[in-house]
């Protein structure tokens, strides 16, 4: 177990370093970031001045080491356009995105697990097929379009929910529904498949033979064993939601990480872009590491393979 832990830690650290280099290089791939910042029609001299101001005249690897070094000390640089510290931008934006991701995850849990259990209890029934259809449709729906349709129906026609903004919890109803529906399929299918498998095992037949009520058998005996893979998929889903909110935040005017990074990309605001990309990637790496460790703890065979 200790060897497994060490190996996973080393690999994760390597991946994190690589990803931070990629995040750093992302906006520099065009070759001349200074020229892009100076704008079209800028003279040689102006471009040179921009390069000097932001330290872009130094070799790229020095710039990276400088950035990574300061980042480790908590200094991520400043936005080129607002002058605001990147750490402040993240501190303002992260709660919005985290709220959205957390609400979505709760909604996914509340929907995916009971529906998955029901679908597995009555395989190939209408409820199983309907659940599969909803999950398949959710995956195929472009989230920007689904979000706009929700705004139209619930915000405008029915007038039940606000259509943009981020101050009250009610602002999060529609964005949460949009995100949750698009990520529902994997946890739901996994719950169903896991339950179907567990329901075949001897201890379930034993529990049924003892005459335990079906509800106790399902939720107390079967679900507990079927839910392990679902937990790790949910961790990964959480990472995906954090990384994928650009579209939903734009549609609902939520000023979260996705919204900030999108506007930073449009303005070639590289300190913001590289920090947010690195931040989201490293969060994802930590989440998968955590889910691997939990799985290995619960099922020691994983650590041995």
């Amino acid at each position, binding site marked *: 177990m200790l060897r497994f832990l060490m190996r996973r830690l080393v*690999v994760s650290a*390597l*991946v*994190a370093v*690589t*990803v931070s280099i*990629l*995040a750093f290089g*992302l*906006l520099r*791939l*065009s070759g001349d970031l200074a020229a892009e910042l100076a704008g079209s029609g800028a003279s040689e001299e102006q471009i040179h001045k921009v390069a000097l101001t932001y330290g872009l005249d130094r070799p790229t690897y020095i710039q990276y080491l400088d950035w990574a070094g300061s980042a480790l000390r908590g200094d991520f640089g400043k936005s080129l356009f607002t002058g605001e510290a990147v750490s402040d931008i993240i501190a303002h934006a992260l709660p919005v995105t985290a709220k959205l991701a957390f609400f979505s995850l709760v909604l996914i849990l509340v929907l995916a697990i009971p529906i998955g259990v029901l679908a597995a209890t009555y395989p190939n029934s209408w409820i199983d097929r309907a659940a599969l259809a909803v999950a*398949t*449709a959710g*995956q*195929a*729906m*472009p*989230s*920007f*379009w*689904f979000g*706009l*349709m929700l*705004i*139209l129906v619930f915000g*405008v026609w029915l007038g039940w929910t606000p259509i943009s903004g981020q101050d009250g919890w009610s602002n999060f109803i529609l964005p949460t529904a949009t995100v949750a529906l698009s990520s529902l399929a994997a946890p739901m299918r996994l719950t169903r*498949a896991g339950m*179907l498998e567990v329901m075949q095992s001897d201890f379930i037949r034993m529990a049924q033979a003892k005459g335990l009520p079906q509800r106790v058998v399902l939720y107390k005996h079967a679900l507990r064993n079927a839910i392990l893979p679902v937990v790790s998929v949910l961790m990964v889903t959480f990472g995906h939601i*954090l*990384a*994928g909110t*650009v*579209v939903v935040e*734009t549609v609902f005017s939520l000023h979260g990480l*996705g919204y900030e*990074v*999108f506007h930073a*990309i*449009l303005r*070639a605001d590289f300190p913001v*872009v590289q920090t*947010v*990309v690195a931040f*989201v*990637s*490293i969060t*994802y*790496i930590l989440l*998968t590491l955590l889910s691997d460790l939990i799985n290995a703890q619960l099922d020691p065979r994983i650590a041995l393979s």
Partner: protein
Amino acid sequence: MTIDAATTALIPDRQVADDDVYLSPRQLAWRRARRHPGLLFGLAVVVLVTLVAVLAGVIAPHDPYEQDLSQQFAPTVWQEGGSWINIFGTDSLGRDVFSRLLYGARISLIIAFFAASVAAVIGTAIGVIGGYFGGRIDAVIMYLISCKLSLPGLIVSLSLVSVFGSSPVVLVLVIAFLFWDRYAIVTRTVTMQLREREFVTAARALGSSHSRIIISEILPNLLNHIIVVLTLEMAVAILVEAALSFLGLGIQPPTPSWGNMVSEGRADMFFQPHLVAIPGLAIFLLVISINLLGDGLRDVTAPDGRN
């Protein structure tokens, strides 16, 4: 006892129905395909959309670029005052929505197909090398896949497109370079299983080189899996292209794409909701059909171990 009866008796699972006896795996797959409603529906829609995309120039009743401000927001055929001249009405610039939809299908399909194909080449190369050689090489491959998985795909695509411009070629390459992981994971796993099979051992015993074994023993056996992943990844590519175009960094107006049609319709959404609803529904229908086709192909070509 005839030879036929003897063979039948030796293969118990072929005894289920008499007409099953002499079906090759390919014939069995055909039979399963004909009885698979999801696959048939998906195939029908995909074929239809492909035809529409190819024949857009012939079918489209209007020029998709022709503006006519006097014809702004013409109603659809089912709305009051609508006519068959503009079936889905016109947009804020008086352009025919139906014609733009047909031309938009072309862009979506071309980008999705090429992106998924380039991704197939990248992902399969990575997956086969890892799965075939194993050991340290595989560790490097796994590390590459982990790096790829940790990057936020959409944000990275947006950054790359903002740097390199949003021509269709750039879009294809950006989507391909960011969505090859599923091919790599699937082909790596299957190659690991194939590597232990007798025909690979036999080829090795005959002195075949690694590249020869990979090309003539491994790859043909991966083909079904690659086609299934290719289908599913085309659906992903369509959604990514639509999202990029919706955000204004994908296909640039006035070229019609389903994503930028939703984005253009958004300004007038409260008064003309169909301008957003129709192109979005088109994306949804195409993506769900491609997914049904992909799931169906998997059921038909590899019916065991579906979960």
